[in-house]
């Protein structure tokens, strides 16, 4: 179980790091296609609020899991 927790930890950390460029690229693509106010507000919320929260929490959680911090929780 402990090994699965650690391997999954790597997955969470990679996922957290991968979300940042993906979100930025998608935002740039969509705003360039249609630079409406609606688009700007939507992508500002995703980039400024949602992405940092998801990335920070997944990366930190993943690193903790990888280091075995959650191994004692059964």
């Amino acid at each position, binding site marked *: 179980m402990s090994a699965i*927790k650690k391997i999954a930890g790597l997955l969470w950390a990679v996922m957290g790091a991968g979300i940042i460029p993906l979100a930025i690229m998608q935002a740039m693509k969509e705003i360039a296609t249609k630079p409406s106010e609606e688009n700007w*507000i*939507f992508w500002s919320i995703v980039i400024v609020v949602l992405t940092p*929260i998801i990335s920070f929490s997944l990366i930190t*959680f993943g690193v903790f899991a990888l280091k075995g911090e959650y191994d004692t*929780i059964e």
Partner: protein
Amino acid sequence: MANDVTNVSQTEEVTSTRRVIAASSVGTLIEWYDFYIFGSLAKIISEQFFPKDNPTAALLATLATFAAGFVVRPFGALFFGRLGDIIGRKYTFLVTLVIMGGSTFAIGLVPGYKTIGFLAPAIVFILRLLQGLALGGEYGGAATYVAEHSPAGKRGFWTSFIQTTATLGLFVSLGVILIVRQTLGIEAFTDWGWRVPFILSVFLVAISVYIRMKMSESPLFAKLKKEGKTSANPLAESFQKKDNLKMVLLALLGATAGQGVVWYTGQFYALSFLQNACNVEFVQSNYIISVALIIGTPFFVLFGALSDKIGRKYIMMAGMLIAVLAYRPIYTMMYDEANLKTKTEITDQTKVEVKKELKGTDSLTTTVTTKAFADGTTYKETVKATVPLDPAKKAELEAAGKLKPETKKEATLPQSSFYKMIGLVLIQVIFVTMVYGPIAAFLVEIFPTRIRYTSMSLPYHIGNGVFGGLVPLISTRLVEATRPGPDLPPADPLAGLWYPILIAAICFVIGSLYISNKTNNLDVE
């Protein structure tokens, strides 16, 4: 004699239990009521305070909607959580109640944009932020207060009453709005009657403050304070110490994020889907949600109590997994039930009325089409086309693509479909009760008393405010992305469900893998 003493002591204990639960739950319910009436009356508030022709006011309207929901709430959690861990639970959640009630009452008194100009949206925006801040501090305080009074084997049961308040708050807000609207009539309600639900809040808050003033401090916190063991810096202890930070992250990614999206989908997205994708008429769609909420509410207590017996994790994870698997089939059934294309129209009952009138320098043509269907469904489509009388202005608007008519579609379902819809929404409310019923007890048990208020409030409000609060925005966006052209219907009206399904699925995997099920009988210290 000994039996009499035991009986008196047991009676006092039961009375004290009820008072603790009542004092906490009623106050939290009022806070939710205050928060929801702004959302439920958003359209009227927007017309009164945020006119569309003023771009700054329109921007403030957008910010008021989103900022209060997911930016300010976590800040409220940090600010009041810290206060609650330093000065105590009782006074902190008393302050949040007063701020929330005061802001709500004040919104009901602010003169409109037509009277005081830009000051009106600015004041309402600030008051809305205060509402978000107060809400961020309330839940953690109430949950902590009740949990710290409750015995180890009954914590899930006791705190589940706090969990019912968010749903009941929505129910009460919808009820008050519908009653005031029916009593005053739509015209008076739109003109001034919408202020009544806001002003009414001050009386509810006064009663709740009176009840809470009579309560004593949480016994665990009082003991800690007496021993001088309270935290001097709860924020640093909560988020800078690895042992606690790892539990904050686990609470967020393994429980509250999934719970937030399941909750918002079951209560708010369901209503929006009924009104916008199924075109169910306003009052009928609100009745569907209200009846489902009121039938579903006791399940919060049922699952809270059950979590004391079999563990919090199993119930929360089961709720998330079933939601992930069942959302698309449920919403497909809802969509099919209201889909007019599959119904037989009684063509000789179709009526079309056209009315033309002058409105200032514009000509307004209103076309109302009513249709009846064999299963008892009635459908009304109102198309309003406003065209300037000045040919130059008309040509200018036409060229800019701004001459599109406004269309309002309203379907009134027959009784059999009405009950089926209630059943389908009720199933979703039961998912909500599974993930939400045990969560207060779960959060309380994974953090120590000295930093509990701060530590549990932040993941709860990020999970609910950010992950849950973004369900309407992201889901609408996902549906819009499937629209083949600007005036064409979306190819997949259910595409909005992918966001809650994805978040709940990740949360289920993390929760199942890392959360312990052995928390239900822990002694909180």
